């Protein structure tokens, strides 16, 4: 879904396959994508879908803050690293896995892709927290730390895979309230 409308219907065997097809569909041409863990790929594709709509040379784009959140941090990748160190010499921990045992790495991937030397933070909540996110986003805009904010919920844990992204600016189609965000989150 994008902007309330169905953007693409993808039939994939698994979530990784879904993200890969989206990557092909958007013609990303960014081989580093394939080194990322699922959480980072999800963050990356969310940013691709929304930031591609905004001119790269605009001040809004250059001053886009990144505010991401989820419930399970990087636990999916944490378990992979734990498995490698628990297998008594059969497997060695890999730096390529270990680096993704932080939830904010996906935010870093988005920053690198879109050249955003900007404000960024990663929050972890029991459930999606539109009120908190609304307040924090407004504080960033009010203190002129940025010109727009890309907010993302990126949850990857067991069978749960959920990405929800929106951009908050000084002007826009919808009023930036906790109720609006909640409504989109529940109906996307």
């Amino acid at each position: 879904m994008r902007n309330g409308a169905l953007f693409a219907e993808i039939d994939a065997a698994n979530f990784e396959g879904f993200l890969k097809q989206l990557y092909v569909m958007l013609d990303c041409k960014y081989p580093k994508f394939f080194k990322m863990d699922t959480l980072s790929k999800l963050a990356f594709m969310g940013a691709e879908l929304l930031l591609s709509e905004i001119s790269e040379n605009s001040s809004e784009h250059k001053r886009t803050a990144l505010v991401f959140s989820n419930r399970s941090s990087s636990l999916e990748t944490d378990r992979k690293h734990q498995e490698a160190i628990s297998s008594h010499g059969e497997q060695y921990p890999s730096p390529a896995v270990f680096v993704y045992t932080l939830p904010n790495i996906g935010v870093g991937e988005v920053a690198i892709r879109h050249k955003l030397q900007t404000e960024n933070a990663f929050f972890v909540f029991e459930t999606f927290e539109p009120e908190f996110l609304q307040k924090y986003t407004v504080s960033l805009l009010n203190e002129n730390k940025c010109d727009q904010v890309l907010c993302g919920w990126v949850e990857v844990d067991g069978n749960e895979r959920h990405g929800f992204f929106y951009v908050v600016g000084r002007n826009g189609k919808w009023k930036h309230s906790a109720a609006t965000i909640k409504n989109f989150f529940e109906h996307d």
Partner: protein
Amino acid sequence: MKTPVYISHPGLVTPLGLGVQQNFTEITNGNIAIQKHSRTDIAKEPFYAAMVSEAAINEAFKSHGAISEYTKLEKMMLLSALETLDNSEVKISDKTLLIVATTKGNIDVLDKDSAFNSERAYLPNLAKTLGDFLGVTATPVVISNACVSGILAVAVAKRLISSGGYDNALILSGDLVSRFTLSGFQSFQAISDLPCKPYSKYRNGITLGEAASSVFVSTIKPTQFAVQVLGDGSCNDANHISGPSRTGEGLFKSVQDAMKEAKIDAHEVDFISAHGTATIYNDEMEAIAFNRAALHGSLLHSLKGIFGHTLGASGLLETVIALEMMKQELILPSTGFDTLGVSKPLAIVETIKHQPINILLKTASGFGGCNTAVVFKKVS
């Protein structure tokens, strides 16, 4: 006119002891928290790290709760919180924001030998356990932004309070030394073979540490000793996920943003509590960023040579020590430093100095390209 926001009521639990005073006394006596440990549950070979004694934690915690019901990290964070809440002029209300800042939380429970359920590894569960114990009713928020988590929490709290979203914030930060983190940094070949030596010529990596610290951030100006949070910035390098920018871009921008908001010039910064992890690239990056920001004349230290790198806890732990330095008008040296090993000049403190700090700059940097800078000012 923005509402002034203050940082107050520090709490601290480290291998050097419980409480800010105990830690400060140990440091001024020249003691460090890093030791050689033989712990086969964490690594096959002996390693240097700054580790808290669980027996000492249990002894201190047993009068507050059942020691077997809480993980080591939870007990450390709660003991720190109790120091913050003790005699605090700031009171917990339904408009108190509880921020838990951690990189890996209870990650050690993923180990099959852990006495705790692996569900404890979910960071919201850690936050809920802490909030329930302390009687905070509002939903807690976890900040997990690699090694800037602890200081980013101060910036986030200040932003939310000055914009009227909350009355005050109780920040608890903590991280452990675990097989998980040690093996990971070893796989990066980032662990020093001796206690780490920030900014030194022969530095060769980090030493891990564990600690918990806590503060209140609020609009209430403490009567005795008040420090205001004047400005902050938290900018990404947009360069590499596991290495810092060679030009110090994100740190430079974070410092510029913080100083601009604080309306101060570089020459007004009396002291920098820097990150200084003692990796080749991090310390060099900091030297470049501080020089670009014309901060090379400001006195500076890294506390990693004392407490090791306590990951997400480090930013707040080092802020708490710096607040005590402001109070006592005493500057602690950069332990482990010998010969300058970065390409740009830095005014590294080599011995204890008795002089006031009016304006403090705290910085941190971490994986994912994150950086945070916060400017503090003594106002009484």
